[in-house]
């Protein structure tokens, strides 16, 4: 490939290509997207692997994310320390999982984490309530919200423990007709 770039070494690029669903070009494009968020912070040379972390405020203001009600959760789930601040690796991870090529199981795994607000590895009723309120911008009455949550638990909770485990969630979500189309971010 003709054009020379000095951001990554060839090995780095190859490794990234093996670890994500992206081509070389897309990785570079993602890098530039990342860099454009904070040009003064991100160096143009990543061969030495600088430990640069962008704060959540910058990540969440990307046009792809800024209207997403779950943007904070997405950033938290994909960030290394769970605080929403992202390194380039996290950034690539996020776009890779939300790319078109990613398989259902991988997407389902991360979707589960996104909806698991309190990080207890179960989607419990409070998580569901938060989800509904985020999705509807608090337009529903509390009774309606709790009805919806009860219905969801009734439908999807296979082992009847009153909350959704990862297995329940995957069982339910991989059957959704639009699942693969919905969890997409395009670059």
């Amino acid at each position, binding site marked *: 490939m003709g054009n020379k770039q000095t951001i990554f070494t060839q090995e780095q690029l190859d490794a990234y290509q093996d670890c994500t669903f992206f081509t070389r070009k897309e990785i570079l494009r993602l890098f530039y997207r990342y860099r454009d968020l904070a040009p003064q912070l991100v160096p143009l040379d990543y061969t030495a692997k600088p430990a640069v972390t962008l704060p959540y405020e910058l990540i969440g203001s990307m046009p792809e994310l800024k209207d997403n009600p779950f943007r904070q959760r997405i950033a938290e789930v994909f960030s290394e320390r769970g605080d929403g601040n992202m390194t380039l*690796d996290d950034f690539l991870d996020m776009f890779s999982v939300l790319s078109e090529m990613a398989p259902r199981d991988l997407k389902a795994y991360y979707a589960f984490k996104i909806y698991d607000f309190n990080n207890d590895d179960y989607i419990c009723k409070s998580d569901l309530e938060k989800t509904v309120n985020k999705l509807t911008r608090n337009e529903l009455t509390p009774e309606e919200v709790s009805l919806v949550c009860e219905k969801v638990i009734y439908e999807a909770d296979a082992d009847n423990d009153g909350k959704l485990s990862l297995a329940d969630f995957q069982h339910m979500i991989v059957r959704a007709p639009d699942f693969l189309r919905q969890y997409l971010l395009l670059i």
Partner: protein
Amino acid sequence: EDKEEDESEEEDNGSQQNRASRRKNYQRKNRDGKKAREEGSQKKDRGKTAPTKDQKESENKEKKTTKRGKEGEDKQKKDRKNSTSSASSNSSDEESLSEEELAMLKEQVEQKKKLISTMRNKPWRMVKKLSVLREAQDFVEKFEGALGKGKGKKLYAYKMMMAKKWVKFKRDFENFKTQCIPWEMKIKEVESHFGSSVASYFIFLRWMYGVNLVLFGLIFGLVIIPEILMGMPYGSLPRKTVPRAEQATAMDFSVLWDFEGYIKYSALFYGYYNNQRTIGWLKYRLPMAYFMVGISVFGYSLMVVIRSMARNANESTADGDDDNFIFSWKMFTSWDYLIGNPETADNKFASITTSFKESIVDEQESNKDENIHLRRFLRVLANVLIICCLCGSGYLIYFVVKRSQTFSKMQNVGWYERNEVEIVMSLLGMFCPPLFETIAALENYHPRIGLKWQLGRIFALFLGNLYTFLLALMDDVNEKLAEEDVVKNITHWTLLGHHNSSAGNDSTVTPPPLDPADVPRGPCWETTVGIEFVRLTVSDILVTYITILVGDFIRACFVRFVNYCWCWDLEAGFPSYAEFDISGNVLGLVFNQGMIWMGSFYAPGLVGINVLRLLTSMYFQCWAVMSSNVPHERVFKASKSNNFYMGLLLLILFLSLLPVAYTIMSLPPSFDCGPFSGKKRMYDVIQETIELDFPLFVAKIFSYVANPGLIIPAILLMVLTIYYLNAVSKAYQRANAELKKKMQMQREEEKNKRNNKASTNPMLQDLEDLLTPSAKTESPSKQAEDKKTESPDGTSPVRKPGRGEILHGSPMAGGRGAVLPPPSQVFVTQPRTLGFRAPYPGQPRPWGHPAGPVPGRGRGQPCY
């Protein structure tokens, strides 16, 4: 989460074994020891970096998944270095094992490679992935050379290189393929702003463009271009010449705009083609080609539509299971992550809210239906009103077409009279759908059902219009046919008279031929029909574009800029911005395609016009959507309704096939224009070709095959086959439904059972657990767990009270504790299945070997 549990258990088992059963097996011990070491180091890391749970979890996962590889690696290293620390190792069999070792090594290398290729599917952090990847790559590089040494290292290296190249090539090819899909980025852009529902229209448009491109290639490549290149030139024949009377105005724009004049006498229309059997030095059989292309246009379209329908059906049945997860899917898959602008997001929020409300209402009122009489009355009323509208519009069109026939006989008619039919039809198409929508408000249907009704009604309107138009056209054709008989005689006598007169003057010299422009000619009904279709198509294009310009763009500009100085909020209030009308647009597209199918036999150039239309439509509508529309309020599930559109398309295709087939089979072609002139019926061209160009026996076979005695049984057979296949598919469907019901019942039963279990006395349950034979197995795991809790993990002090509560199956809220699997069954049953004290409960065996004794490894195996 039981994975983590397993992990801890196995770790502790390892240490226990270290203490208690040291001599058991060095392999396993080593592995465990190594594990423990790793665990320890990781723990340190954790301590340093204040770890989050998911990080840990992912690590655990990773360990679980890479265990095979790692174990293999560890073991391999150990075997190689012969550094078995355990006392009970006998290294004498090292050499004898080398063969199996090699095989194992190879397997491991394969596994590593598999790991590398599936690295991107692993839910780990990038750092983890990178390091594991590096490790795996190093391993592969280190050992695959050694492996290859035995049997031609070069070949192996070459193979590897080729594999790498192949992967790279595949990747590049994949990129190339996505780049080759036209308008992918454009549609994605629309999709990212408007969600997938609007994009579905553009995908449909693109699909249509592809189909039309193929049709265009067929018609242009096999009919129009051969005619232009090899056929007789313009002016050589009466049918290829503008008549003397029209020549003065034949180049005027107003005439050309009506597709009269020079355009009428061009290769774009049926009448231009000559009935000469072969043309040019290629001896190209143009009439035959014309006929076959006309047939194959329909054949290809049918095939494509049905194939894509079948594919859609396959996809949609693949994700059956519809009504089980209504709320769950709404909750977790309703947000389209592609939405990237605030307006779309607002709309999406609104639509999600309404859809939730709808479902809640459905849920609450699924049983009761109050005042059913009023609703029924309203629905009947609405249907009556709409049928009245449909009949009225049908009659209006019929009336207008009749009138236009009388107008066409008069001389001085204005622009309006000439274009009355098109104007009326376009106006109907513009105003009836909103009217229907208003009336449909009476019915108070569920919006989804209401939308289907609406689609059906608009479709009926279009269809009714189309068919009234066709009937009127048929009248026209019949009139023309009657007229033709008269003209035929006149032409005959004119030609004869001319011949005689010139023959009388000078019998030796051939008479100077009559100028083709002067020959009196018939009305050529085929070209008339073709012109009618082309005009309708063009006016449809214009109306569509003008509607978009005025209704969307100008409105958007008005709302946007006049809003600064207006009494009320224009953007939120009355005019607001236009929505993208998906259903209307799709139906317009389908309807237009029907016109193309019908008209293309009489006007081969029509497909070219349509290709241009679809092309411009793509850009124009993309621009209009992006610049001046807001998304549809009623979200349209693209995946579900696509087949509905295809069904409409199929219906239109079938309906447009009928009139064409009728004209081909039962109307006589014009005597002086078109490729079939002089024949009794158009299909005679096939018989002619068979008789003249094929050997005799083919003609014989053909005549046998065409015998009604053979055709009727064949049709019968096909009908019976359809009946049989239909019955079979119904049976499958029933079986499917039955199975689904069974599954549902089982699920319910399971739920109930668990419910009961959970609600029974916890004491009883404890007792039950104690009484089971596996009670013994529980104690080590319990111990293990306790140990784990005490272990210097630093993260899980919450787990202390764990055991008792876990047994009761009560969920532990918050913190680390909830990571535990709440139902006790997991603990009890897992060791039970594997036997007493299996160190790796629920783990796949290393390398996925069968459980039997494996040579070379069996020595150190624990006795199960």
